[in-house]
């Protein structure tokens, strides 16, 4: 009864305000607690400007939401704006003329000067025109370490990947799983990517991922990578959880020594009330190569016939990248802002480390930006097979090189 009343009241408020202002439906897949809090910052700012934010949250991960979003755009029922990961996911939609050209907004706002790293804007750009607004940066190359687990094992907390591998036998003896790993292809691929950048270095990574050079993928640098990943596979043998946050929870509770996961794991530690440096540590670039990739989220605006809506879309685009909104959104989301010129003093230790690396220019484009969804899926399949079985490292390397050679 109470819920019904609340719903009725909410509907009444929405319909009352809808009459007066431009209504934009925004679809996204930010549905966890921290994510919903972050997207509410956008909605507040947009509503404060006298417009109406119609929230179109789609439950499930990006893999569930993306097909829904894309089929709505293709089916002639476009939303006002939508989240996608910046990268190549919307490439064909842009080529088909289904996305709004934001170049004039970008020029007026001077995005070319403020967006840092500039590769974020590049991945929104097709043939010199800008089609999306980057809103945050998420990086994947983080090693999260549990202080509790290392206390139990009587070992100092490692400061890089090699020390971690060396400390693994002590963890196993103490009955702790050395490496927590969710049994899903994208997580195993993420771990592979993080180890690649740490072990092979950025030059080899760039050559393989950006230039699709299969010879380098068959070369000695990548042999070392696959051997390191095979070692990591043995360390994660006893970890049979599925979701990434279950794996993070193993680190939080001291059941596992470490996890390779993106900076969004930060949110889980905060929710559990853990303090960086006391309860857990984070090592960007696995402590070996302080370099982060710069994937993340961007907003796209499907093309629309109504000039009023088009004007509102451009207004929203400018708002999403404005300094105040960037600060409030990214603090709630735990991600890094896309502008280098704003004050993030309120961020915690791990975020500060990330900001420092960004300021020093230690950035790479993300795999999403470099490889098509097709190639990504094939590599994820390979990684899922490799991590769960006994495939020799050399076989995996050969198959990986074949996939790179066939990539477009």
């Amino acid at each position, binding site marked *: 009864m109470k819920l019904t009343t609340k719903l009725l009241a909410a509907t009444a408020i929405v319909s009352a305000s809808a009459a007066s202002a431009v209504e934009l439906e925004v679809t996204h897949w930010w549905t966890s607690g921290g994510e919903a809090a972050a997207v509410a910052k956008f909605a507040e700012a947009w509503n404060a400007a006298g417009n109406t934010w119609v929230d179109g949250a789609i439950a499930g991960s990006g893999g569930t939401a*993306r097909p829904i979003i894309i089929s709505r755009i293709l089916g002639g029922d476009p939303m006002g704006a939508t989240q996608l990961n910046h990268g190549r996911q919307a490439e064909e939609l842009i080529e088909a003329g289904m996305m709004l050209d934001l170049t004039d907004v970008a020029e007026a706002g001077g995005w070319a000067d403020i967006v840092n790293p500039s590769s974020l804007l590049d991945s929104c750009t097709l043939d010199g025109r800008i089609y999306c607004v980057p809103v945050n940066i998420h990086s994947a190359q983080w090693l999260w370490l549990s202080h509790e687990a290392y206390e139990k094992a009587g070992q100092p907390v490692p400061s890089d990947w090699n020390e971690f591998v060396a400390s693994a036998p002590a963890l196993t003896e103490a009955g702790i799983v050395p490496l927590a790993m969710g049994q899903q292809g994208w997580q195993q691929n993420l771990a592979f990517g993080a180890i690649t950048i740490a072990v092979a270095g950025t030059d080899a990574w760039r050559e393989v991922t950006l230039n699709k050079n299969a010879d380098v993928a068959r070369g000695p640098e990548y042999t070392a990578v696959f051997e390191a990943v095979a070692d990591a596979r043995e360390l994660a043998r006893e970890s049979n959880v599925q979701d990434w946050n279950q794996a993070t929870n193993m680190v939080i509770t001291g059941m596992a020594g470490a996890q390779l996961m993106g900076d969004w794991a930060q949110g889980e530690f905060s929710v559990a009330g853990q303090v960086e440096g006391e309860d857990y540590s984070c090592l960007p670039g696995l402590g070996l190569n302080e370099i982060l990739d710069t994937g993340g989220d961007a907003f796209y605006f499907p093309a629309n016939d109504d000039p009023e809506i088009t004007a509102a879309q451009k207004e929203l685009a400018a708002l999403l990248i404005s300094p105040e909104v960037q600060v409030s959104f990214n603090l709630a989301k735990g991600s890094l802002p896309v502008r280098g010129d704003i004050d993030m003093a309120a961020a915690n230790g791990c975020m500060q480390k990330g900001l420092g690396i960004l300021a020093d220019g230690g950035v790479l484009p993300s795999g999403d930006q470099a490889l098509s969804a097709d190639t990504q899926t094939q590599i994820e399949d390979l990684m899922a097979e490799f991590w*769960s079985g006994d495939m020799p490292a050399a076989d995996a390397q050969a198959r990986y090189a074949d996939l790179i050679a066939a990539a477009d």
Partner: protein
Amino acid sequence: MAVVEDGTLNSAKGAKRPIRLFRNPMAKIASIPMILTAMVVFVGGTVWTIVHSFTGSRLLPKLNWVGFDQYERLWDTPRWLISISNLALYGICSLILTLTIGFILAALLDRKIRFESAFRTIFLYPFALSFVVTGLAWQWILNPDFGLQSLVQGWGWESFQFDPLNNPDIVMFGLLIAGIWQGSGLIMCIMLAGLRGIDEDIWKAARVDGIGTVKTYVRIIIPMMRPVFITSLVLIASGIIKLYDLVVAQTNGGPGISSEVPAKYVINYMFQAQNLGQGFAASTMMLCSVIIILIPWAYLEFGGRKNA
């Protein structure tokens, strides 16, 4: 028989032959929507899919021909090969076990036991659940930390190990348990209806001849129930080919890619990998496998009867 048929044919030729197309026009008009649906949606959709499987379509369907490239890639992909062998394993086991268990349950219920309707309801209940619920429920039952394994270990059998969902070698049997649990109730009901359709006199005659109960079932009743078995077979087979939601709910293809199935490959490559051409090629191969099984069977079943 053949003579009679010839006779009717000749007499039909002799009289003014009505045009068959216009006979009973109302019924034909009424079925036009369904005919159109079948032609446009099923046949049209199938042809469209097959045509586009020879293109390099990615996110959007395009007509840029690439020949058999998609098929070559498909049959070079380990995940597809694993999917096919998984489906074959699941299909054969599920077909045999569901039929056997369904028939045995039906035969037991047919022995005029007490509380028959209560048992029938219990056995049929799993079928009322969707595959997603079935998959989730069995994921929990087979979870080593909370489910069956920890329960038996809690009873004192400390060394008991039963963890199929985390073992790539036997994960398909974890799926099989759930599939059979869900499907055998319906087959039991169909079999039971078939058994009830057998004339009591057959049983009496068998008893008079001194044939044992089991032998009566195997030698007399089962051959008489051929149409019922065919119906069950079709139901089970269609369930096997479209196996998808159970896998997604129970294992999501894991551990690794050891419980992948073809339908999941199609969906993943069409939408997640945004490679329509590859997904279409895989779904065309699924269609081919159905046709390869279906045509000889249909020939035997329908073609054979005319000659009999």
